[in-house]
């Protein structure tokens, strides 16, 4: 019994070592990165795997930052070929890539994603400005008396901020700091909302850290609740508690349109059309980045790019729009399809 176990273990190790040899060649595309782009990239990958003769790419949701870190690790089969990102690559990340030998990167913008504030359909929709959202959710807010000081957020109900808003306690469920959605919300809502105060706007130019300190600190007294990365959980909680609001990507609102309604931000309802033509203010572009050195080394990258940038995928009526992606204008699509076709190098 015992001896047999040893033999089996030895055999397995041998098989494993044999596998190492095989691992030197990879025949599928490895994609990492943003969990916001994940639902779109996976749809394209699945289609690509089914209709082409190539294997289906493997896709991991590591977050935008985590994905770029893996992507920039170097050139070779053990590093991913493509990384998804819900924000543009930073100069520091490009430098990191270059330092590790990843010199040529192709940037493809795939469309837009709206971030929505939504609540249960059982209550009336809210119409709120970004300034009011900032006042509702920031840990410290400018002194209402007008001095250039911050005070701990005193507001308990929406009514306290604006008499036109309902007299309900402020209760917002949102993503944790590791999420790209949170990053985008900070930038597009909290920072822009804060900038409505002239002295904070001036501070933003003078002292970036102090500015971020004010705009990026969320309330910790229960008005803002970090609900984890699982957006479905937020949807469920909103159903149970009609007075609460949730922050998540547009696709979740789209899929749950029978239960949830989007809050109007600066008077704009978060609809497909409003996000597509840029009227809805809280939207961000989505990207993916391709390692040029891997094209030709890993089979199918060019074909995958071709599928992703085709009109039937990301066009106005493409299958990605069914999944909630908001397409770019036609001209932009043509530009990025050309970039993908000729593998143009990224320029910041």
């Amino acid at each position: 019994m015992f001896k047999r176990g040893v033999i089996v273990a030895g055999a397995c190790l041998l098989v494993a070592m044999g596998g190492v040899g095989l691992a030197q060649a990879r025949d599928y595309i490895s994609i990492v990165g943003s969990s916001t782009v994940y639902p779109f990239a996976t749809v394209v990958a699945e289609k690509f795997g089914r209709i082409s003769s190539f294997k289906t790419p493997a896709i991991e949701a590591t977050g935008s930052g985590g994905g770029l870190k893996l992507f920039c690790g170097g050139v070779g089969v053990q590093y991913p070929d493509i990384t998804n990102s819900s924000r543009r690559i930073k100069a520091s990340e490009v430098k990191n890539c270059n330092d590790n030998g990843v010199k040529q990167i192709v940037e493809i913008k795939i469309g837009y994603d709206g971030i929505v504030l939504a609540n249960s359909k059982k209550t009336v929709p809210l119409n709120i400005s970004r300034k009011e959202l900032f006042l509702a959710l920031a840990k410290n807010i400018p002194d209402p008396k007008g001095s250039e000081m911050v005070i701990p957020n005193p507001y308990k109900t929406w009514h306290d901020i604006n008499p036109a808003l309902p007299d309900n306690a402020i209760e917002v469920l949102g993503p944790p700091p590791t999420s790209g959605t949170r990053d985008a919300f900070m930038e597009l809502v909290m920072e822009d909302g804060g900038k409505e105060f002239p002295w904070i706007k001036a501070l933003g130019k003078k002292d970036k850290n102090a500015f971020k300190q004010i705009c990026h600190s969320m309330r910790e007294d229960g008005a803002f609740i970090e609900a984890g990365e699982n957006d479905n959980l937020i949807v469920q909680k909103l159903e149970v508690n009609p007075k609460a609001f949730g922050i998540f990507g547009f696709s979740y609102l789209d899929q749950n349109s029978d239960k949830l309604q989007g809050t109007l931000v600066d008077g704009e309802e978060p609809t497909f059309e409003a996000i597509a033509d840029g009227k809805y203010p809280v939207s961000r572009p989505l990207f993916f980045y391709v390692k040029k050195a891997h094209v030709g080394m890993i089979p199918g990258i060019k074909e995958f790019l071709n599928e992703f940038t085709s009109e039937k995928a990301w066009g106005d009526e493409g299958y990605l729009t069914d999944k909630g992606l908001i397409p770019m204008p036609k001209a932009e699509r043509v530009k990025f399809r050309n970039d993908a076709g000729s593998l143009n190098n990224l320029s910041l």
Partner: protein
Amino acid sequence: MSDIDMDKTNKTIDTVKRGLARRYAAERRFRLFGLIAIVISLSFLVLLFGTVISKGYSAFQQTFVQLEVTFDRAMIDRDNPANSDFGGLVKAAMGREFPEVSGRKDKRKLNGLVSTGAVYQLQDMVSTDPGLIGTTNLVWVPADDDVDMLMKGHAKRTGAESDRRLDDQQLAWIGKWEQEGKIRKQFNRAFFTSGDSREPELAGIWGAFVGTILTLALTLALSFPIGISASIYLEEFAPRNRFVDLVEVNINNLAAVPSIVFGLLGLAVFINFFHLPRSSPLVGGLVLTLMTLPTIIIASRASLQSVPPSIREAALGIGASKMQMVNHHVLPLALPGMLTGTIIGMARALGETAPLLMIGMVAFIVDIPDSFVTPATALPVQIFLWADSPERAFVERTSAAILVLLAFLVVMNSLAVILRNRFERRW
């Protein structure tokens, strides 16, 4: 016996009797608490199973729609089926079904009622039987997940149009199908035979299941012999000194280390240093081996310690060497306990997602893994990924996957009990 002695005896008995009621009451109380504890844990279990089963059972069925498909010669490339327009075949069939529908937008809405999987199904049919080309057949194709949810009663048919995933027009089309008996629910084979998909109606657990089997097989094949050898060495052969004590303390500590740490270790050692392929069951198995080893070693040592010393003395006294003593007498007696420890370790490994996250096994993988180095995922990971998907139809599939995981666990544990009973010496 004198009167005084009698008196004393009576007094003792009286005292004992007085205390008796209290002693029995304490026992009854304890029994009651025990019973309450059991009832509470059972009801939680029933609640858990009830929720999972009531949510998940519907995923074992899937809505199918009957289409009259004409395998048009003009649209099929006999030599290269991948080049054929099977989407066109489906659209044509839908068009014949509802000839009154015109206009781009309406047609899009109509075609959205059947799954994109219909296209792959027709492609498969033609590639297995090219004789179909040129004929017209009745084919049951999977319906879209929104239709599926509607048929299963998870989505409502009434209320404002904007509140629903399907509008009035689509409901009318489905109503026509229902009247003609062209829409029905049947067993969801795809759930058990296909890999992951972003379309709920096409998504299956087979890929994750195979990934789990490969990963666990490697884990078992490595951790069982290594763990048992280590425990035997530590228990029977290792000298008692500081170094061995240190090893012992470390093993006990490792058993309590959060599993994510093993994932980080796996990333650093197996992927970054040895360059083993990311997302592969090979790396997953190695990481889970590291994780389960301490559990197996601790359990195995405990069961070695429980072998009576008289058996060891008997073997040594007759002139058996230490190795013979262990192999012939101690190991057979300790094996059932070792198996139990191994199963506990394996069950823990089966439910892990955290260490797999770091080594890339938490990923969207469609193809069924066919070796230890192809990318794979595992059952708990699949549950996690589906739970996070926006499509409503994944809710029931998540519960169904949990059911499969539970079934797997039950099978594994029963196997362990059978094995243990076979090895157990009953004398």
